[in-house]
């Protein structure tokens, strides 16, 4: 790198003049296209300006010229993470982490990237390390707690939520997620108590009544569920799942006239609610509105083809319509999905039988 221009670029970067630095670095890059450091610094200048796509291009150009730059991998990972490219971020950050095992940034970013990928079990160890290094970061504890909750590590979730609440007893969402953790541990009544208290102190908090409604729904206490879901709709009229659950309850109670508009409303608010299509399909099939029923079941299948129930219902409807071949295809999918689940269990249980305690 030409020293004079490099010094100038560095000085501009330090002064926060990233655009000017970028101009100098682009000039340098044109003169020295095989200089890895020019590309990496140019990437940093671009990243500082929010030009993350260009930044990533420069980081990758730099790494193509010199693959052993863990700090550039961290920067690349960060730019990918900021764009929501979690998988690419994980790839870069894992390389960085291998070379710089104590690097706090890559630890935190790895945890957050896995979290973004919904790979909560993978996220938790990194988030735990990052949280240990930064114990005052309540927001990070919140993410960690959710990672624990959604990876079914309930003891960890409870500890983190309780830790957050010790610092901030009014953290409403922490109360709500604590309730989710309690429910997931089979302590549904305790979860209801937790949510009841939250609803009393923060009656307008979005989703608190929905969460309560859901728990009552789960306990088949439909009267209370309806009450809470209606409260949620009053607070939060745009939340589709409240309508979905109300519709499902109505259908369970054979009140099709009430169920149908609720389910339609749910879909109008959120067009990919599989359960609403499934329930509507049932209603249409009952009324012999076969075309509408077919459409609804097909939509449910399309939204999640891995669930056997929609395939089964579709198959039954095809059978009723005399479309035997279509029915057979759907039943084959139903059987295949059940078999897959059973095989997986057999592998888990009997495949590891030799490890069982004697």
């Amino acid at each position, binding site marked *: 790198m030409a020293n004079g221009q490099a010094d100038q670029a560095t000085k501009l970067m330090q002064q926060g003049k990233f655009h000017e630095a970028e101009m100098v670095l682009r000039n340098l890059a044109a003169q020295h296209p095989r200089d890895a450091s020019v590309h990496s610094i140019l990437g940093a200048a671009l990243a500082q300006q929010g030009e993350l796509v260009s930044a990533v291009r420069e980081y990758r150009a730099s790494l193509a010229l010199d693959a052993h730059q863990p700090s550039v991998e961290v920067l690349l990972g960060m730019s990918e993470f900021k764009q929501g490219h979690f998988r690419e971020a994980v790839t870069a950050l894992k390389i960085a982490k291998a070379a710089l095992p104590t690097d706090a940034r890559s630890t935190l970013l790895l945890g957050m990237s896995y*979290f973004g990928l*919904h790979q909560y079990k993978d996220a938790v160890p990194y988030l735990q390390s990052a949280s240990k290094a930064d114990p005052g970061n*309540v*927001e990070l504890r*919140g993410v960690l707690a*959710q990672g624990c909750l*959604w990876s079914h590590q309930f003891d960890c979730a409870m500890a983190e939520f309780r830790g957050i609440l010790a610092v901030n007893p009014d*953290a409403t*969402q*922490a109360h709500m997620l604590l309730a*989710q953790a309690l429910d997931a541990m089979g302590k549904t009544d305790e979860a209801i108590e937790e949510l009841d208290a939250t609803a009393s102190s923060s009656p307008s908090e979005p*989703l608190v009544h*929905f*969460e309560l409604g*859901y728990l009552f*729904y*789960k*306990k*088949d206490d439909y009267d209370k569920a309806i009450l809470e879901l209606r409260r949620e709709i009053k607070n939060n009229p745009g939340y589709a*799942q409240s309508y*979905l*659950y109300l519709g*499902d309850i109505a259908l369970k109670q054979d009140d099709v006239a009430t169920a149908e508009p609720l389910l339609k409303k749910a879909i109008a608010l959120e067009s990919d*609610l*599989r*359960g609403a299509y*499934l329930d509507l399909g049932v209603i249409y099939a009952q009324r012999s509105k076969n075309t509408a029923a077919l459409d609804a079941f097909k939509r449910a299948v399309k939204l*999640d083809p*891995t*669930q*056997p*129930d*929609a395939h*089964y*219902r579709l*198959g*039954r409807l095809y*059978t*009723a319509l005399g479309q*035997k071949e279509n*029915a057979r295809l759907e*039943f084959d999918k*139903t*059987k295949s*999905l*059940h*078999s*897959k689940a*059973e095989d997986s*269990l*057999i592998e*888990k*249980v*009997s495949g*590891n*039988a*030799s490890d*069982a*305690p*004697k």
Partner: protein
Amino acid sequence: MIHRERFSRREFLLLSSASSLAMAQGVTTRDLKPQRRGKASGLPFLAKFTDVAEQAGLVHPVIYGGVHNKTYILETVGCGVAFLDYDNDGWLDIFVLCGTRIDGPVPGATNRLYKNNRDGTFTDVTEKAGLVRTGWASAVTVADYDNNGFDDIFITYYGQNVLYRNNGDGTFTDVTRKAGLLYDGPTRWGSGCTFVDYDRDGNLDLFVANYVDLQMERIPKPGANPFCNFHGVGVNCGPKGLPMPRNYLYRNQGDGTFRDVTSESGIAKADRTYSMTAVAADFGNTGWSDIYVASDSTPSLFFKNGRNGTFVEEGHQSGVALSDDGKEQAGMGIAVGDYNLDGKLDIFKTHFLDDTSVLYRNDGDTGFSDVTTASGIGVETRYIGWGAGFADFDNNGLLDLAVVTGSVYPEVEAPFPKYPLKTPRYLFRNLGDGKFEQLIEEAGRGIADAHCSRGCAFGDFDNDGDVDMVIINLNEPPSLLRNDVSSESKWLKVLLVGTKSNRSAIGSRVLARYGGKVQAQAVMAQSSFYSVNDRRLHFGLGANLRADLEVHWTNGLVERFANIECNQLVTITEGRGLVKSALSGLQKKTSSQT
């Protein structure tokens, strides 16, 4: 601070599919709460059940696995029982299966044959009959496989299944080897079994289900993984997670031997199942016997008879493989009967707790519909259901249902008293409008008393014109529930004897017409849970004094008999007419009253 997922887990739970059912245990359940009970009908129930087992002499316990702990699933499933008339004296005898213990046999643990003394008591004739055998017996099917006029017995085991030929002199001979049914491969766990004349050649063939491919040395111990737990308590593992075996069909060659036709008949194609009870009947009114198998935690199987020596498994197509919402259920026992009086055979199947039993209404050509909720069956989810039967207990002309129950996890009772080992039986009284009403205490102490029950059989052991029950209780003597009906309702019993068809008439169907109604019943060689009912079909007639009968014989002949008087047994011999006889038990009751 908190990042909320776009799809909350709430939706996931709402929409969880069969593959994500409550499977942190070895048995599938839908984790359902009972449907809301309707207003009680207030109608009196005129049948009362009293357990008379002890006074009748049924005193030997049915040993089956550990009492307080069950390490292996083998100890939990239990066995069946048969009502049969092995000596053709017109009185039902009782054959009770038995198991053993993991740590070795218990003295006196054997299957037992109790001969009816015609006075309300029985004599244990096991030894004399040559039926002493200790082992893990599962299911029984009874019929005259060699058409010699006497009922034979086939029993499935964990281990070698056994065929006993009735010699006609009060004794039986083990003819398993001679019949070609000896098996020397890895141990199988035989489960449901039924005689069936699938090819209508007049010889009874044999369908044999297997439950789990159980390799004792490889099965994880209680608590070894999440599937060997129930609410956090370590319990025996399975069936989920254990390898699946397949079912077999043996063709009767008419010379006392059977040939394995599992592959050529198409039965082998359905190999994804933990099969339990098997029933054979003409569900499609085609004149050919189909086979329905209750499958535990896997889709139940409906083998539709192809009328050419083959079967096609059409459980999904027929609507009897899964629940209405497309979920697997823990199928255990099966009842077959025409609850809605439309001349077609409906199916009732029992399941695990936190799930309902299922009632499938036979809609004819379009298959079956799950009417569990519409019929009110969904009010009960507390108990694990096993044996079950349709029978008109109060003779009012409508088929009621009975279910026996019992837990599989004795270890769970102490930490969770809401899951006791012993639980009551219950009835569903048929209200006649497509709906049922659950009765427990109202049907007498014999129903309300709690036991850990499994198989049960239905029949009129005291020949007094109503349907009684015999029930297997694990590690206790059986229950013998005497039914005492206090109404004047009429009834009619029909015994079929095949000539061209198999002599036991297994697979035949009778339509009884009375008071503008028509009721179908089938002659079957297994139903309930691993059990065999009285082969005499019992029709309650309500206030009707007469009924018309239409017999659809297994081999296709249809015969009609008009204006048959009530309160009697009619024996119909294929192509040779009908013989009427009063029931001797009823005569005695009448004479003792006068």
